[in-house]
Each structure stands twice: as structure tokens, then as C-alpha cells.
């Protein structure tokens, strides 16, 4: 589904990703871990198509298509979803209106019929139940005045409505207390399916207690230096990222 090969990317003239390779298949959950500054968030932003991230070498193919050649909205329509580390507050844009516009423009780009307001409402009700989000949030402006936990749950709720093929969760656990973390994890787990893949970018092992990954990769200095199963995360938790630095040559992803 996703095949990243030898990806190099620069931000503001500084090389952050230095030859990252990773393959993700449908149904798999991958965790990308690493110390601050390793390039974790850069990876998410490059995949979603944010301005200011310059790819200097390498390739990313998604379902056989050159992902890097697509505009952000085209990537979304192709099935890529980024749950933001810092969801943006957008005063004046109603949450429901926004989400319906998003879903319908995606459907339109894919040549599917748009949902009318009744159909959309039915879909939203169904997803709200799973996410345990109060529908009061829907009537507010996008993320405006939301607590940290509400913002992160809103990201996962959007994911539930948009039903992407590949969901990238960028530090979704950061800033959450344990209850909020459990709710978010429950929302993610509810959406795991044989067709959907997840890329979880996280600094801490904590999230992986609640969302069990199939693969764990360690990102350091712009490359994946170690890949393994979930026990790798535990090892990191015990020994810290210093262990990675001492740990030999960069390795390609083994997934």
C-alpha cells in the first residue's frame, strides 16, 4: 500500500530525512518511535504534502501512485489521513459544515456520489457513538475552544467519518491524560480493519499499551535504524534512545 524508498527531505534548507525506507501493507499498524528531532513529524508532514518540506531524493508510492506528485487534497481523496499533533482552530468554520465539505469533496474527487445532509447526519451519528463525542462539539467552529483531549478526539472522529486507507497519527498521545488517551485509543482500535493501515508516530511507548502495533521502527537522525515487533518498544522504554545511538548501522525497514 505504502512504499517509501530512500526518502530525503529538507526543511528550511536543513536535511531532516536522510534515506528513510518503509513498507506498509493493508491492515498493518506500524509505530514510528524516536527521540526529538529525529524527523518523526517531518515524515508525517511530507506524506500529507505540507508546504515547506522539500523532498530532495527518494520516492513514495501509495497504491502504485506517486504520492509526492499529488496535492494535499488529492492525497486525502486517495485515502491518506494525517491526525495532527497540533490540530488547528478555525474560528467561523462550523465543524459539521467542514466535515461534510471534506467528505463530499473527497467523494467527488473519487467519482462517488455526494451525501445529502440526511445521509451525512446518519453517518455522523453512528460515528459519534463509537467516539463518545458529544454532538455539542459538532455545532462549534472547528477545534475552537476545544480542550487538548477534545481536539485529539475530534481528529480521530474525522478519521472515522472520512474512512481513509492509511491513517498517520502524529503524536496523538501527546498532552493527553490517561482517560483521554484510553478514549482516543479505543477510537483508533474500533477503526482497525484488514483494509486500513496505521502509521503511529510517537515519542513514548505509553500509547502502544493501548494500540498494539504489528511493527515498531526506531527513527534516528532521519533514518530507520531498527525495526522489530512490539517488544522493541518495551526495550526502548527500558533502555532509552541512547541505546539506539550505540546500536550499529542504520537498517532498512523489515516490514
Amino acid at each position: 500500500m505504502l512504499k517509501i524508498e530512500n526518502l530525503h527531505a529538507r526543511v528550511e534548507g536543513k536535511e531532516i530525512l536522510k534515506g528513510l525506507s518503509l513498507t506498509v501493507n493493508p491492515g498493518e499498524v506500524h509505530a514510528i518511535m524516536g527521540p526529538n528531532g529525529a524527523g518523526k513529524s517531518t515524515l508525517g508532514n511530507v506524506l500529507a504534502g505540507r508546504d515547506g518540506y522539500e523532498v530532495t531524493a527518494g520516492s513514495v508510492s501509495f497504491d502504485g501512485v506517486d504520492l509526492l506528485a499529488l496535492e494535499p487534497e488529492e492525497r486525502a481523496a486517495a485515502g491518506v489521513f494525517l491526525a495532527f499533533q497540533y490540530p488547528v482552530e478555525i474560528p467561523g468554520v462550523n465543524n459539521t459544515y467542514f466535515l461534510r465539505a471534506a467528505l463530499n469533496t473527497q467523494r467527488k474527487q473519487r467519482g462517488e456520489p455526494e451525501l445529502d445532509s440526511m445521509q451525512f447526519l446518519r453517518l455522523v451519528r453512528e460515528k459519534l457513538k463509537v467516539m463518545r463525542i458529544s454532538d455539542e462539539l459538532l455545532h462549534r467552529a472547528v477545534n475552537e475552544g476545544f480542550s487538548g483531549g477534545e481536539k485529539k478526539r475530534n481528529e480521530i472522529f474525522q478519521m472515522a467519518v472520512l474512512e481513509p486507507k492509511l491513517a498517520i497519527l502524529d503524536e496523538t498521545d501527546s498532552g493527553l491524560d490517561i482517560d483521554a488517551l484510553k478514549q482516543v485509543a479505543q477510537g483508533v482500535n474500533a477503526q482497525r480493519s484488514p483494509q486500513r493501515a496505521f502509521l503511529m508516530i510517537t515519542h513514548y511507548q505509553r500509547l502502544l499499551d493501548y494500540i498494539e502495533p504489528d511493527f515498531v521502527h526506531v527513527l534516528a537522525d532521519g533514518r530507520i535504524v531498527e525495526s522489530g515487533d512490539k517488544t522493541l518498544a518495551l526495550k526502548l522504554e527500558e533502555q532509552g534512545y541512547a541505546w539506539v545511538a550505540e546500536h550499529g548501522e542504520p537498517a532498512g525497514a523489515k516490514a
Partner: protein
Amino acid sequence: MSQPAPSPFVAALLDAPLPASGIGWLDAARRENLEAFAAAGLPDTRVETWKYTALRALAQRRFAAGDAQADARDVDLSAFALPGTDGPELVFVNGAFRADLSRLRDLPAGLSLQPLSLSLRQDAEPLRFALAGRYREAGDAFARLNAALAADGVVLRVAAGARIAQPVRLLFIGAPAEADLAWHARNVVELGEGAELALVEQHASSGEQGHLGTLVGDIVLREGAKLRHAVLQDAAEGGTLVRRNSLHLAARAQAAVHVLELGGALVRHELQAELGGDGSRLDMRGVFALRGRQHVDTQLAIRHQALGTASDSVWRGVADQRARGVFRGAIVVAAGADGSDASLANKNLLLSGQAEIDTKPELEIYADEVKAAHGATVGQLDERSLFYLRSRGIPQVQARSMLTSAFCRSVFDDLPDETLREHLFAMLSRRLPA
């Protein structure tokens, strides 16, 4: 000392005869205002209030005086329908009153509404205070012109204590003509003690033309009166429109003004308010959304003159392509206006590298225990918000439009008339880049 030759603009207007009323004081005022206009001409950018609006190109243009065929112009009113306003209305086409298009029958009790031309014929004396004035400031060229040449307009009075339920609409339509015309409207509005009124002032166009319109409105609110005044300006793309509305608020009077400026090539809007009575209150909200080579200049001048007065003004501007917006918000809290509260905020959005917005908040305080806040910004669409919307599948053009629309709409959120609010939103959406 030799006088420079008058510009084509001034010369053409001086060619036309003054409207003759047969009323001594009025004809004298008209003559003197015209002489003052002829002597000073149009202001240049050295006049502080005209600093960002150059009139050099306008000075080279010639406008014919009024429209002799105004009565025969075919105008489809349904194009300017405002949902929710089927109450009294006065319609002017190229400055001329059109009885056939207006709705003046069965006026509610306490409301008197008629064209100025009729009021002058019936009983001019009550209008003397409003119409006998001389304009002496360097920036007053258009007010002088209007005072000299306006033969018609609106006279609206609400009796003390009367609450007029239905909004009253004043509709000024520019219609295509054989030449570019100059028309002038003079409005006199008075709300008696405790009276209440909702007034919609609408400027529209029934086809492309490059007319010049001037409007001067004097709006007086007696003690405890309440006015809601909405201004919808969607004039012709090539039009020039210069308006001045002066509000006078007596004790405990309240005015809420909502302004949407969309049309016109060159537009100047002066809103002057005098909070003259203790505890009077003024709330103003405005949006201008510009594109092409439009130039729209909004000038707010608010004077707090009495104890415990309050004013709150929020303005937002959007300029796309090569458009130019100008905003000046001047607040004076005069000596003796202790305990007053004045706030003014102006935020602007530039949608293109060639667009420009100049904003200047000014605050002068001569009283004690005054709460005052003012600020102005000019910026661009937030890249983070734009990426957020796009990352959810919303194409760039639509995402920009959503953010721009949200930026403007929030200003009208407090408009109590929901139908009017939705109509403003719809007009705005049609105007913004889609």
C-alpha cells in the same frame, strides 16, 4: 494670484443649473455650498482624511447632471429583493424618486416617510436645520456638492414612542444611461423619544454604468430611541459612490450599524457619530470585500461627548487581485465624557500580492476614567489553517474561500435579524473568490 482652471469634473458640474426650490434659505445654502465647492474643488491627498484616496482620475471625468429619463428606466426590482423586508420602501433610480416602484401606502402608525422633494413642497421649515448647513472642512467637497445639488432624498420620521415592526428600506439603484451621470441624495431621519426603527439602506445596480452618486444622511436619535441601520452596498462595477451618514445620539439612545461594502470602482463611506447624550451607545460592524481594481475607503469618526457613553466598532476588510482598501477609525472622547467606553478593532486580509489595505486607528482622550481599546492588523490567510482544510480533501480554492468567508462572517454574527444576516452571508459568498 491667478486661479488654476477648474478640473473637467468641477467644470461639468458647474455647468448644470442649481435645483430651484423657491425657498430663500435653501436656495442660498445651495448657492453658497456650490461656490465653496467650485472654489476648493476636490481634495488632494495632502488633506489628512483623503491621504489614501487620490481623486486625480476622477477630476478628469465629466458627469452629466441627473437623469432626465429616470422615470422611464426599466428596472427589475426582484433582482434586489431582500427576504423579510416587504414593508415600506422608497426607491430611487439614478437619484430620482420612483413612486411607481416605491411602497408608501398603509404606513404603520407613527411612521412618516416621503421623498424630500415632496417634503420641501409641503413644509420645508422642519428641514431647515438639516439643509441650511454650510460645509467648511477641507475634506467636505462631496458634502458641499450634495448640499448644492441634491433635489431629492428621503425624509423619515418616527413619532415618539412608536416602535416600527417592519424594516424600512431605502433603495438606490443605478441604471444604465446614455452618459455617465451624477446624482445626489439627501436623507433626513429622525427617531423621536423612545422610538424604534430598523432601516435598510441598499445601493444596487441594474446594469453596467459609471455614474457618480453622492449621499448625505443626517440621522437623529432622540432620548432612548433605538435604531438598527443596515447598509448593503453592491453598486455597479464601474460606479463611483460617496456617502456620508452622520448620527446624533441623545441620552440613552442606541444605534447598531451593520455595513457590507461589495461594489463600486471608487467608493467612499464616511460614518460620523456623535454620542451627545449621557449613556448613549453605538455598535458598528462592517465588512468590505474587494477585487479587481476597486478602491473602497471607509472613514469612521466617533465623538464621545457625554457621560458614560459607549461605542464598539468592528470592521473587517478583504482585498483580492489589485484592489485597495482604506480604513480609518477615529475616536475622540471629549472632555466631560467621563466613564466612557470606546473600542475599535479592524482586521484585514490580503488575498493577493498586488492588493493593498491601509488602516489607521486613531484615539484621542480628553476625559477621565475612560476605557478604550483599539487595534488594526493586515495579514494573509493562515497557512496552517489552509493546510488543515486541504489535508482533509478540500481543494485549495475552496479552502481559501471557506477561510475568507469565515473571516468576514463572524462580524455579522450578532445581527439580530436572521433573515437579513443570511442574506448578507449569501451576498458575501457570491462575492468572495469561489
